[in-house]
């Protein structure tokens, strides 16, 4: 994978570079920022995260399992009290609720790992430790004939450092 990384000192120049990159359609790009910023998220405009589906499915699976395990145990090992149900759904709501939270929360984390594509064993090209400190970065993978144009574009947008990496 060959691409160009531009290092930016400021938020506004980074947003500027994203806007121009989107307009020019030079290729897929990744933005590095030390903290989440709505300005960058809006500039990239990728749409809603799919994590919510993991949360929903995990929560529904959890509440189903919570009720099921309590009812199954009551039927398997019944404690018979005259006039009372062997499996009583009202106290079992505690299990339904707690297991919903447990499985839903863990599914949310699984969803984060799946959608954000981490954990990663190695850092991909383009990453620089400055991006966790205070600087912003824009990594672009243009076609080989557009490489110079991408470099120039990042410089014009205000990048303090531009380099080609593979």
């Amino acid at each position: 994978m060959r691409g160009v990384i531009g290092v930016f000192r400021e938020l506004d120049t980074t947003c500027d570079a994203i806007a121009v990159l989107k307009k020019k359609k030079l290729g897929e790009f990744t933005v590095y920022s030390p903290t989440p910023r709505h300005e960058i998220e809006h500039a990239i405009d990728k749409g809603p995260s799919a994590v919510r589906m993991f949360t929903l499915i995990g929560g529904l699976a959890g509440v189903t399992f919570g009720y099921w395990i309590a009812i199954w145990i009551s039927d398997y090992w019944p404690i018979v009290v005259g006039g009372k149900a062997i499996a009583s759904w009202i106290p079992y709501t505690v299990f339904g609720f707690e297991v919903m939270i447990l499985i839903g929360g863990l599914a949310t984390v699984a969803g984060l790992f799946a959608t954000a594509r981490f954990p990663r064993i190695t850092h991909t090209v383009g990453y620089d430790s400055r991006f966790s400190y205070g600087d912003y970065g824009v990594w672009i993978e243009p076609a080989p004939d557009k490489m110079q144009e991408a470099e120039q574009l990042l410089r014009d947008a205000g990048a303090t450092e531009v380099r080609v990496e593979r």
Partner: protein
Amino acid sequence: MATITRPETEDVELLRRPNIPSADVRLPAVKDYEQVDDEITATLHPTGQWFIGLGVAIAFLIVGALAWTYQIYSGLGVAGYNPPVMWGVYIVTFVFWVGIGHAGTLISAILYLFRAGFRTTIYRCAEAMTVFAIMTAGLFPILHLGRPWKFFWLIPYPNWRYIWPQMKSPLIWDVFAILTYLTISATFLYIGLVPDFAILRDREKNPIRKRIFAQLALGWRNTDREWRHFVRAYLFLAAFSTPLVLSVHSVVSFDFAMSDVPGWHTTVFPPYFVAGAIYSGIGMVLTIIIPLRKWFNLKHYVTINDLDAAAKLALFTSLIVGVSYANEWFVAWYSGSPAEKQFFANRLWGQWWWASSLLYTCNICLPLSLFSQWCRRNTTWLFILSIFINIGMWFERFVIVVPSLSHEFEPWQWAGYRPTWVDYAILCGSFGWFSMWFLLFIKQFPVIALTEIKEIVKPRLKFSHPRGIDTTAHPLPFMPDTPGEFD
């Protein structure tokens, strides 16, 4: 995530008025992202005092461990239990630590959903406190077992005994609630730490520590994809944790409220317990954060405004707890039940008058001082008060547990209770256990969330954008939603 929003009104000057103190998240002494990293990561180097503190905590822990060993060898009788008082210091301390664990998730999750700015600087400490408090609380039901090594029998799993837990028992509900709370709180803490681990990985010079941080950071790179999904996942975890905070202590209160014992069998217990838990948790947060901000020289991060807001929360919850006490007395009188009336008379004017007086003084009277802004903004008084709150809340649980069991329906059920040295030693051990984990945490990981602090620090801009920028880097005619962000 910091953002820029359109104002409801055109009255710009009105919007610019600082919304202090509760929502004021301005950190005027923090100039840029680099300063945040440099100052907060500088707290990670162990000092002589830290080693002394850790040594004291471990010494307390050893005392507790020795007492537990003696109890296992000799039996639970050495813990001062005499029928009918078969719940004592262990259950009191269990409820106390579960309560302490509540403020962390309240601050990190509920206040996150409500966008309360003051949480940003204190939530990491509170979250860590939650996890370690629940770890401590979880020990006590095990300590209370005759054969503690069989604790896993409480968990439903296929086994050779062909027996399963009684799913209608509040004690089994407790197992599920506490395990869920511990798991979700630890997950929430860890996920919030991942971007900070990446910062530590990139800053660390020691190769061994750098490798450990690299493993903990899971390859985090600060990409737009990671942030987009991270922010959403964090929000959902916060949304899940919010009802969990309310449910866990409600379930703990069911341990008492589901029984037919005077003083316990009341419907006010779940909200009463939740408010008390949040109150005690805020007390412990203040106990921890006030010295920490001084020792670590982080007063310009954890500002007086943040403490002021936390103190208001403590005042609010103390008032709820006060109303709950009044409700208990009222119901005892209004119920017409002689057992309830006698029990409350015994609690207030009988053998337990000293414990009741102590808790009412600490939990109702002293916190009224927080109506004064001077008291809320005086860190010395806040620290002293927080100690009283901790003591008061431990005695609240004592007054709930012991007097009820020592004064049930029939005179032959009336008895006394006196904790033994084993109880005191294990109580000290629990504080040692909690302090040891917390002290280890504060010197290995940042006590203030680096990434979230950066969100409230003014970002570096090349051009003048007094009201922020739009997605194409043009100045906006709108106001930032974070007061002072672009000042």
